[in-house]
């Protein structure tokens, strides 16, 4: 029996090894090497890249990234929960609404981000519309600031919030809400004291799914932030492109991955795993 178990797990282990451990190993190796004179990576092996990371500049950018990702997750939750609740209560139309939530994934994220740029620009749809209606005289500066970045991130990762919350709400036993109503709870009270606590695993899972990609985002801050508000993902990307400093880029991304793992570990240790 044990043998069978061993052999059936071989494909999974092999996948894990090939597509997770080996690439991670390469990243670790690169992070300990030195940039060659014109890019690439070469010996000697040392910890210099990690020493460079201790620069307050990168710490500030890291903190900023946590802040932007946190705010984006918060807004995604604010929008995602009511949306998931609405879909869960839509009876037969559920699958249609779910498909609509997934629909944006059919187009590239890059194209959708450009679409936002066309909406938010000075001469974009929103500003020209408002000016034509006489609501404003001067275009509102909607593009190239932190708000635009948060908007782009919330928009991009909202489905990751909606789907896990929906899956917990879908399983929610309606008789619990009836019982709450019988005991005199108003709809608001039963939402806060029955639905939300029972949906908490979905909310937590959704928040993690949104927070982590937001933390590493680089496209959105570049396009919607106009390169004026750098996130840690941009610094990593820059190392692999213009700066041609792969070892430093590797150490940056490892530290980011490590931080996320430590946070998740702390969360689980504090008993958060009951939500997962």
């Amino acid at each position, binding site marked *: 029996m044990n043998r069978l178990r061993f052999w059936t797990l071989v494909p999974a282990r092999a996948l894990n090894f090939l597509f997770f451990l080996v690439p991670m190993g390469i990243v670790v190796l690169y992070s300990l090497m030195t940039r060659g004179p014109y*890019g690439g990576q070469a010996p000697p092996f040392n910890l210099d890249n990690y020493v460079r990371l201790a620069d307050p500049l990168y710490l500030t950018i890291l903190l900023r990234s946590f802040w932007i990702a946190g705010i984006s997750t918060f807004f995604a939750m604010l929008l995602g929960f009511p949306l998931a609740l609405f879909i869960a209560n839509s009876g037969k139309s559920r699958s249609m609404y779910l498909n609509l939530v997934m629909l944006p994934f059919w187009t590239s994220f890059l194209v959708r981000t450009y679409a936002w*740029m066309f909406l938010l620009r000075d001469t974009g749809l929103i500003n020209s519309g408002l000016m034509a209606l006489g609501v404003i005289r001067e275009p509102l500066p909607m593009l190239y600031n932190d708000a635009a970045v948060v908007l782009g991130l919330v928009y991009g990762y909202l489905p990751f919030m909606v789907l896990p919350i929906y899956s917990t709400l879908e399983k929610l036993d309606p008789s619990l809400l009836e019982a709450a109503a019988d005991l005199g709870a108003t709809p608001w009270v039963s939402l806060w004291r029955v639905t939300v606590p029972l949906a908490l695993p979905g909310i937590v899972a959704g928040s993690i799914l949104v927070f982590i990609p937001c933390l590493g985002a680089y496209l959105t801050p570049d396009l919607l932030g*106009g390169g004026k508000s750098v996130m840690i993902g941009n610094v990593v990307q*820059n190392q*692999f492109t*213009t700066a041609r400093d792969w070892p430093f880029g590797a150490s940056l991304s490892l530290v980011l991955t490590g931080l996320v793992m430590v946070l998740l570990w702390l969360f689980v240790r504090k008993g958060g795993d009951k939500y997962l």
Partner: protein
Amino acid sequence: MRRRTFFLGLSGLAGCTRGKRRLNVFNWSDYIGPNTVPRFEFEFDCEVRYHVYESNEEMLAKVFSGNSGWDVVFPSNYYVGPMAQTQLLAKLNHSKLGNINNLDARLRNPVWDKDLEWSVPYMWGAAGIAYTTKHEPAPARWADLWHESFKGRITMLDDAAETLGAALKKLGLPLNTADPEHLGKAKDELIRQKPLVRAYLNAEARDQLVAGDLLACQTWATTASQAIEAAKHLAFVFPAEGFSVYSDCAVILRESNEQELAHQFINYLLRAPVAAAIVNHSKTATANGAARAMLAPVLRDNQVLYPPESVLERGEWFAPLPPGAQQLRDRMWTEIKSA
């Protein structure tokens, strides 16, 4: 198995290209005419795999391995030296490049490759300021981009070398400096300018300038020339303090098994009518002096693409940077962008 033999094996299997020579060309996007490659294939009875890239770094990341499968690539001038030093390039055989005399006299003995041992200049360009003539006074110097009247209506390039370069020129310092003190001053200038800057943009600045979102932007002459064609109220100036100049050059990789065909391709690109047809399409500045005379007059006499000698004197070529300086510049650029 080398990747090339693998590809050749594949195309051999396909059955239709057996025996034909095959050349792999990796060039910048929008840098070729619609008929350039098919005509070469026809004339030299070969097949060309032609792919494009958007940045030097993208090309280098592939070519660096030394068995990338490419034969001819087009690095910018400041990468020619480093690529030659890291043994990536094959020496050019000038006896096979009879058309090399078509090159613009200015590019026959360039600083980065005095005798064109490794590279043949293909296109060139410079950075300056594009602006709308509706705004008074018109900018003429980099320093004007630090003026309050442009607040929120200008963009700078999202490119450390260019943006630091503009600040260095503004301060009267050399473009390719590695001196931390020089770079520190340039960084401070750019941080001081940041509240006026709407964004750091490359190609997107063109549309916003045409649409009227921007009053002025730091941009390349080729980008500006396209914008001016789209909107007549735009103009371009080569800043008085001096400006950066680059050239994208054809090189043959050492790994190439088609050295002969690669030379034939470069020599073909050097033909005046071929080079003229390319820039009539790409609307960039050709390094081919003989071709320029054959261009449509709007392009030939375009002072943005081909500024007069008196202006060009203020230009300074980009040069390779020592690794330490590169690292320092990158850290400063990160500091500017996160300020």
